[in-house]
C-alpha cells in the first residue's frame, strides 16, 4: 500500500456488493455448435437418402470442373445437385445450372470456409427428395475448412499438379481430416515438375486410410475411377 496517497486502500465507492466473480468449469469443444449443426445435416441426408461429398482444395484446384465432368457422365442415372461456397459471386452455381445441375450458391462474404450452419440453410432451398448425390464445394482454401464438419458422408481435397507436390505436409490438418486426396489436372503433368508419389506417400503418413486418386477433368483420364469410388461409398452408406 502506498503511504503517501493511499492508493492501495480500497475505496468504499469502488466496492459494489452485487458484483462477484466465479470460476466455472465448462469442458466443451469450441466447435460444439458446429457439431450440432453438422448432426442436423447428417439427419437430413439420411432421411432423404442424399449422399453428400465435401470437396475442398485451393482456389482454382478444379473443384467445379470436376463436378461438371462427373455430372456430365452420370447425370442420366443419378440426380446430382451442388452447394457452392465462395466469398463472392454466383459464378460456380451458374456454371453448374448451365449443364442442368441444381445448385445453390452460398456467398460467405469475409468467411474463408463453409460451416455446417450455412450448409444447413442451403439444404432448405433444395428439394432433397430429388437428389441422389450432393456435392458441397467448399470455399477455395487449404486451411480453415478443415476445422468445420459439414455432416457430409465423405470429405476430400483436390490438389492440382500446378500447386506443387510439397503441399500435403505444409497443410497437414486438412489432409488428416480427409477420406480422399485427388490430384487434378494430370493433363498438365508434362509441363510442370510435380512428383505424384510425394503427395501419395505424405497423405498416408497423415491419414493411414486416405484414398488416393489422380485425374483430369479435361481429358477424362481417371474420372471413371473416382466416380466408382463415390458410387461405392454411396452404396456402403445406403445399403
Amino acid at each position: 500500500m502506498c503511504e503517501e496517497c493511499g492508493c492501495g486502500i480500497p475505496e468504499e465507492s469502488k466496492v459494489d456488493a452485487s458484483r462477484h466473480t466465479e470460476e466455472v468449469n465448462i469442458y466443451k469443444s469450441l466447435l460444439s455448435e458446429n457439431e450440432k449443426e453438422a448432426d442436423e445435416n447428417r439427419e437430413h441426408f439420411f432421411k432423404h437418402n442424399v449422399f453428400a461429398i465435401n470437396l475442398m482444395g485451393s482456389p482454382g484446384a478444379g473443384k467445379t470442373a470436376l463436378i461438371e465432368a462427373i455430372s456430365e457422365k452420370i447425370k442420366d442415372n443419378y440426380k446430382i445437385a451442388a452447394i457452392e461456397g465462395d466469398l463472392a459471386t454466383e459464378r460456380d452455381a451458374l456454371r453448374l445450372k448451365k449443364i442442368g445441375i441444381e445448385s445453390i450458391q452460398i456467398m460467405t462474404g469475409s468467411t474463408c470456409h463453409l460451416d455446417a450452419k450455412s450448409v444447413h440453410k442451403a439444404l432448405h432451398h433444395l428439394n432433397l427428395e430429388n437428389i441422389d448425390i450432393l456435392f458441397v464445394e467448399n470455399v477455395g482454401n487449404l486451411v480453415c475448412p478443415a476445422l468445420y464438419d459439414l455432416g457430409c458422408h465423405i470429405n476430400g481435397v483436390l490438389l492440382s499438379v500446378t500447386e506443387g507436390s510439397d503441399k500435403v505436409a505444409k497443410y497437414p490438418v486438412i489432409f488428416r481430416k480427409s477420406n480422399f486426396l485427388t490430384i487434378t489436372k494430370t493433363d498438365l503433368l508434362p509441363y510442370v515438375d510435380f512428383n505424384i508419389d510425394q503427395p501419395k506417400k505424405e497423405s498416408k503418413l497423415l491419414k493411414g486410410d486416405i484414398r488416393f486418386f489422380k485425374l483430369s477433368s479435361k481429358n477424362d483420364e481417371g474420372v471413371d475411377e473416382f466416380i466408382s469410388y463415390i458410387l461405392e461409398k454411396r452404396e456402403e452408406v445406403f445399403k
Partner: protein
Amino acid sequence: MHEWSLALEIIKSAEKEAKERNAKSVSEIFLEIGVLNNIVVEQLKDSFEIAKRETMLNDSVLFVKEIEGVAFCNNCKKSFKITLPFIFCPRCTEVDVKIEKGDELNLTKMTLEF
C-alpha cells in the same frame, strides 16, 4: 488464417456460456488445444485480442494449454508420441494408428463477472 476463424469461435462459445449463466462479462478464459490442429498460439492470442473488442470478453485474458499428440499403433498395440507433421509409429512405421491425444479444441474453464 485459421487462428482468426478459431478466435471468432472462442468468442462465440464463451459468450454463449457466459450468457447462459447470466454473467456480465468474462475476465479469464482457458483453452486446451491439441498440437495436431496446427494452431500457432501466439497468433491465436493476437487474433483473440482483436476479436474480443466490444464483446463480453473485452477485458478478458486468454490462457492456452497445449496438448501433445499421442497415437496408438494398431500393430504394436502401444501408444507413441507423435512428432509432427507426420503420424506413424516410430517402432514399426505403421500408419494404421488411432489418435488418442492432440485433437483437442476445448473451452475448459472461464472466470465470470456478475
